[in-house]
């Protein structure tokens, strides 16, 4: 489903080219739960942005569901982000002026779903993440863990086949982190491909496959046998 071949990414700072990713080759099949593990600055977020079609690689090919992403028009890429990919970020990135319900509705607005359907589905999603009684709260009226649940509900609004989570528990305490990771595991159990980004071995242990990144290269790639 996700197929990265010879991906490299570099930034030009002044006259110098700084390579962030080099020769990354990666295949992720449908339904997998993959952790991208690596120290800070190793290029994990850069890689996720490429997988999520937010950024384009400098060189290399990225095929998503068999289609080369670089050949898609901007509107087609927007559609891919809208329907195929759900993002969860470390800092939640909820829209501050909207209620939890409206936040969850937003991807469905961009997918032109009718209002009634949006409402119903957003409520159901918030209920699934245990926030049935917080639908009309605004982000500043929610705890960190609750915000991340809203963000997860929002990411799943259009039932995307892929969930990309970049340090989803980076701002949460260990107990809340555990709950969020369980939730992500459940989502994966429902058939969604999950790519989880972390620098923490313990968190990577929730995944069934761990890919280690170091200095912009894939260092190791191994299946984890659940204990």
């Amino acid at each position, binding site marked *: 489903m996700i197929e990265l071949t010879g991906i490299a990414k570099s930034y030009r700072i002044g006259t110098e080219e700084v390579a962030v990713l080099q020769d990354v080759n990666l295949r992720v099949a449908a339904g997998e739960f993959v952790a991208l593990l690596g120290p800070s600055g190793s290029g994990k977020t850069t890689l996720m942005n490429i997988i999520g079609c937010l950024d384009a690689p400098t060189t290399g090919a990225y095929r998503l569901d068999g289609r080369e992403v670089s050949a898609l028009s*901007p509107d087609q890429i927007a*559609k891919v982000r809208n329907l195929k990919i759900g993002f969860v970020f470390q800092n939640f990135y909820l*829209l501050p002026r*909207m209620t939890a319900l409206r936040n969850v509705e937003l*991807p469905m607005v*961009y997918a032109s779903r009718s209002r009634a359907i949006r409402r119903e589905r957003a409520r159901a999603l918030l209920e699934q993440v245990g926030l049935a009684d917080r639908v009309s709260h605004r982000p500043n009226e929610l705890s960190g863990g609750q915000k991340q649940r809203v963000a997860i509900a929002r990411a799943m609004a259009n039932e995307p086949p892929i969930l990309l989570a970049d340090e989803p528990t980076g701002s949460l305490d260990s107990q809340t982190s555990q709950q969020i990771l369980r939730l992500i595991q459940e989502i994966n159990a429902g058939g969604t491909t999950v790519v989880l980004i972390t620098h923490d071995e313990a968190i990577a242990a929730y995944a069934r496959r761990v890919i280690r990144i170091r200095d912009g290269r894939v260092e190791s790639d191994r299946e984890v046998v659940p204990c």
Partner: protein
Amino acid sequence: MLAWEMCKSAFDSLVANKLRSLLTMLGIIVGVGSIIAIVAVGQGGQQAIIAAIDNPALSEAAIIVPKAILAGNVTSTAGIPAFSPADTALALATPGVQDVYSTPSQSDVITAGGKTTPVTVQAGPSFLPLIAQFEVVQGRMFLPIDSAAHRRVIVITQSVAKSLFGSDSAGVGQLVGLEGQLFEVIGVAKSTSTSILSALAPSLNVYMPTTTFMDLYPGTQNFELELRVVPGYDKNQVAARLIAVLDAKYHGDIFENAAGFIAGITNTVTTVTGIITTIVGAIASIALGVGGIGVMNIMLVSVTERTREIGIRISLGASRTTILWQFLIEAIVLTTLGGLIGIAIGWLIAALASTIGHLPSLISWQAALGSFLFSALVGILCGIYPASRASRLNPIDALRYE
């Protein structure tokens, strides 16, 4: 549906910054408000002036006058032919003419019971109320028989009755003095003019038969010949025929139908008020333009402030077009809302001007619709650049923006 969602979210973000939105709209509000008020007062004034000039006598009658009188800068009437009784007879003999009359007037002073009031003595036929726009509310109007008998009877306006007899319904049957002669008041008249000017300055008039008037002021020269035509005849054609006869009699191109002259004045008034309205409107448009720049400025600030939000929206699947429309709609909502408030305020100012300041005003839906559309246009013109900047943001930089 997406458009509706975007309008709603535009409203939300404007409401979230109430004070800022209001201050931004201020330029638009002032611009549109002053355009509406100025155009309303300008058009109202124009209508009032035209109504005042547009003598209803002209719809009843044709008025033949020497051109020299209408020329305006008359210093002496010497050399200008006055109409004689023979001319009146000539007019009456013209086919299609029903009545010939004249309405000379004279300023004078009237006395009664020791009180004195300056008045305009206005002579005319028995159907003068139709021409001079009044109705007799007490007593009666003078009749053709009063005119034929040269009777010393007068009808006074309510304001004359009030200053002489203390009440605007008193005076019928009383005797009053004019030029040392006694006249009997047979009626009190009330103005029927709808012109705003006649309401502002109620006229102190005394009406009497033309025959009586000529007895009272024997030297009066008559420079006006007024005709009523037989129904079915065109009064301007009848007048033209008579003018040809009179011109032949006095040897020259001397006479004119005043209807054409008044139409000319009306046109001039329309042109002048049109020019004034355009100039002041142009100045108000500058205010609108400055308001538009304010909108552009605040939209640029808003795009910068909401860079993170834009990044999030892109990550959720918003296309560049969607982002563009979101900010464009926000600018349009801002300016049209300002436009609507401006229209309401301009309306209010115009209404106040006409009730308190006695300035006639006329609010046209064209001016309101025009300003509404214009403010929407300002929104589009001033919103397009900030919106396109928002839509061209790189999602990664936008998300990382602190």
